[in-house]
């Protein structure tokens, strides 16, 4: 048995991702430390951990963002590394710095890389410099004619927006050179009227864009590989709800180009850790750099499912300076994986978050299924944290099998007591456009009507009512509590 890379790791997170990280820690014989606010003292991640430290804060979220307290907790319990999970402090350069200053290993890139990628402008410039495609744009100028001339050169369609604005004011899409000057003039005058600043900005407009991202691993020395791409085009309220790997309907050449672009960026940044390079992909095959996430991604399991790799283990090994354990040519993709994010929300009311209590949790069990959650029966779901309750991750030999299995697993998944998007996710997966792989980030709104809760089928209604009626104690008594021989004689009258 080899010596563990770390003795004890504090997981600076909660919920499903904390549980997910701890599972790998247990496999690697590394002790785990959970942190928790008073309100989550009995949460699953606390129970799973070998040790737990209470952190305080006005709100639970505030506690989880308290750098000093968390670093102090790690020191106090003797942790030699901190895994930040995703969200909270995972992309906070100050945190990475504070952890390092305390002599503890931060499982992630160094603070400088986090800062570089955390700023949109610097990240974009870094990408552009290193040959990663970014969306062509024209910066605002005071001279409208100069602006129009420059804009013409980057091609169409173009999106013109007010440099100072937002909310769609002074925004327009221009599809041909002939319309450009007039559109720019109108946009500028609108911008002037609404924001008192007539300068406008233009960039290439990607119609029906797809969200494609590439999982990379970097050793911090310039060595980097990719673990293929993921598609996360199905989104609501600008958040992903269904992710898959590999992307649906992607030409092999294009896939290779995107993946190579990501490796180039990671390598150039001397990136250390697992990371994700996000792209926007147009119908015309052009793709542009969006941002790089310097942490584990929510949807990392779909990559794990097709590659058979454990990304948390990879993160820990990279943080320990063990370098990349495999070469690009060793990475193989097998089949197709889909992740559905189970959220406490009401899809019929614009995905408004819901609260409640998990009264019953029944999870289907299959070799090809991963259910990532920190849920327990009788657990209260409050507005304190993110509405994502769990992730259902499914593997299939191809996309069709993965879709069918996902629908079946969602059907079988019973998470009762809170309104969730489970039914909705199944409807998305079963939609013809999804099955055909016709995805783009506007999918949810484009198919809004078809995805709404359908009427209850006539044959199902009595089944539902019977199941409900027989669930009420008094009706059970009425139906089954009749003494003999009365029950057997039935509604006889003499």
């Amino acid at each position, binding site marked *: 048995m080899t010596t563990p890379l770390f003795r004890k790791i504090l997981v600076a997170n909660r919920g499903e991702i904390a549980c997910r990280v701890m599972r790998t820690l247990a496999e690697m014989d590394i002790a785990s430390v959970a942190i928790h606010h008073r309100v989550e003292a009995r949460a699953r991640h606390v129970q799973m951990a070998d040790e737990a430290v209470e952190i305080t804060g006005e709100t639970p979220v505030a506690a989880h963002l308290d750098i000093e307290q968390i670093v102090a907790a790690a020191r106090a319990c003797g942790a030699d590394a901190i895994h930040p999970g995703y969200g909270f402090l995972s992309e906070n350069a100050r945190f990475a710095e504070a952890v390092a200053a305390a002599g503890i290993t931060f499982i992630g890139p160094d603070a400088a890389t986090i800062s570089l990628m955390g700023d949109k402008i610097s990240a974009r410039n870094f990408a552009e410099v290193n040959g990663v495609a970014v969306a062509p744009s024209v910066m605002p100028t005071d001279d409208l004619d100069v602006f129009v001339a420059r804009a013409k050169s980057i091609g169409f369609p173009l999106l013109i927006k007010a440099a100072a604005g937002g909310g769609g004011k002074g925004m327009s899409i221009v599809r041909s050179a002939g319309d450009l000057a007039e559109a720019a003039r109108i946009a500028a005058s609108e911008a002037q009227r609404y924001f008192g600043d007539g300068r406008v900005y233009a960039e290439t407009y990607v119609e029906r864009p797809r969200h494609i991202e590439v999982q990379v691993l970097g050793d911090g020395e310039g060595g980097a590989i990719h673990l293929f791409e993921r598609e996360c085009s199905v989104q609501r309220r600008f958040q992903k709800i269904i992710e898959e790997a590999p992307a649906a309907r992607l030409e092999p050449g294009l896939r290779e180009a995107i993946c190579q672009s990501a490796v180039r960026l990671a390598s150039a940044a001397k990136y250390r850790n697992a990371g994700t390079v996000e792209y926007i992909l147009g119908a015309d095959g052009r793709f542009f750099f969006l941002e790089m996430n310097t942490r584990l991604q929510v949807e990392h399991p779909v990559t794990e499912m097709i590659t058979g790799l454990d990304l948390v283990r990879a993160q820990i090994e990279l943080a320990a300076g063990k370098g990349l354990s495999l070469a690009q040519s060793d990475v193989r993709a097998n089949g197709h994986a889909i992740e559905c994010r189970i959220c406490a929300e009401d899809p019929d009311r614009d995905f408004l978050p819901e609260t409640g209590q998990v009264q019953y949790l029944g999870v289907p069990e299959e070799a090809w299924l991963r259910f990532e959650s920190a849920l327990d029966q009788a657990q209260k779901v409050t507005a304190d944290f993110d509405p994502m309750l769990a992730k259902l991750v499914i593997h299939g030999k191809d996309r069709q099998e993965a879709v069918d299995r996902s629908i079946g697993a969602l059907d079988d998944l019973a998470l009762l007591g809170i309104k969730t998007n489970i039914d909705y996710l199944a409807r998305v997966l079963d939609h013809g456009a999804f099955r055909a792989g016709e995805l783009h980030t506007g999918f949810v709104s484009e198919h809004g009507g078809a995805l709404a809760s359908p009427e209850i089928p006539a044959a199902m209604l009595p089944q539902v009512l019977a199941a409900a009626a027989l669930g009420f104690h008094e009706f059970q008594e009425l139906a089954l509590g009749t003494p003999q021989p009365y029950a057997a004689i*039935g509604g006889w009258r003499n």
Partner: protein
Amino acid sequence: MGISLSLDDKVHHVTILRRHPHLVLVIDGEEHEITRLPGSGDGRGIMSIGGHEVAFARTTLGDRQIVRLGGRTFDVSLVDPFSKGGAAGGAQNVLKAPMPGSVIAVHRQPGDKVVRGEPLITIESMKLQTALPAPRDGVVSTVLRTEGETFEKEEVIATLEPETEDA
């Protein structure tokens, strides 16, 4: 007899036609034979209804049943036929003082419609303020004590009358 259930704002009625040799429910006037009964508790169950085997999961939330069936989740609530409606509610017509005291505020006047549980009058007794709720749905008939007036225990402070149909 039987129960009324509400699903998606529609009321359905479920009753029992017979129990032998199998339970037969009458749901919205149609008969459905249950040849395999589900278990009684929360969780997963299987039932055979109308010749179809149906798997479902179910949980009780007070007077609601959350049923997951056929890949969909349904929120079915029990309708209490006597909780609403003009003259519904078996409670009394009179609002009596639970203890001696004085009236602090009168919230509803004669002729006002009220629903059960709505505060009618706030009283103060033993330095404690209490809002007296309407004992049932109806219309305020009389208010016998106004602000500042005192009363004894069990004294009638207000009376209600059933809401008339055409009101």
